[in-house]
């Protein structure tokens, strides 16, 4: 039967291809955005200016979305099947962390933002112990 869904389903994948992904990955990128979320929530709570509070909410949602993006890139592009053997809970960890980022996006709960930071730290440990700093940063991670 001819359905809208069947008409609109792509028949094939076309490649906006690049031979060389840049290969630079670091959970710090997600962490900085997540720290922004936490600080913005604190500033929101300390203010009684409704315009400032509205801006806080707007910016926090943008930053939380960036956390999700950076985590997705690590998940799709940095981590490989051999890392999954070492960390069988890899998918679960990323799934929970990106869900937590959604929670931070939706709420003004500082506790949720702290929880997100600790989840990113778990991912950071995985990145470090799989050689991330040496393999993906130009001169390791700056100290």
């Amino acid at each position: 039967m001819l359905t809208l869904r069947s008409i609109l389903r792509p028949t094939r994948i076309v490649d906006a291809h690049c031979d060389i992904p840049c290969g630079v990955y670091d959970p710090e990128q997600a962490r900085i955005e997540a720290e922004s979320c936490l600080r913005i929530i604190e500033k929101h709570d300390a203010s009684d200016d409704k315009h400032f509070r509205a801006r806080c909410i707007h910016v926090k949602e943008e930053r939380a979305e960036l956390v999700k993006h950076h985590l997705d890139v690590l998940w799709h592009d940095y981590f490989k099947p051999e890392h999954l053997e070492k960390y069988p809970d890899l998918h679960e960890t990323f799934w929970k962390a990106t869900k937590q980022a959604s929670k931070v996006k939706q709420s003004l709960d500082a506790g949720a933002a702290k929880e997100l930071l600790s989840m990113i730290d778990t991912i950071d440990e995985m990145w470090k112990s799989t050689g991330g700093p040496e393999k993906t940063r130009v001169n390791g991670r700056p100290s």
Partner: protein
Amino acid sequence: MSPKGLAWPFLALLALLVARRRLDVVEVRGRSMAPTLLRGDRLLVARTGAARVGDVVLAADPRRPGRELIKRVADIGPRGISLRGDNPAASTDARAFGPLSPDAVRWRVVWRYWPPRRAGPVPPAPARPR
């Protein structure tokens, strides 16, 4: 999406053209066309005999049979059609594999229908500092 009224004749025509292989629907992978096209974008493409400079087209990958590339026509010259990604820092294109024969370029992108938020004709290449 709830097609009503005039949408059905339009979709029936679309289906007919797809069936006759004049139109097709494809999904984008990769980021060499960012920010114009992103991974997961779904596009309506039409058969074309003569690509023009600025068109976003599908072309057979000259280096890997079976793979179909999506790029923008940067130049048409005596040696063929040169393709370029809108994201030149992350694109493998004519700079790597040279111009293509016009036969290799058979489909032109006409419309993005997914995601709905960015539906519409494909915009021209972003201006970039050189």
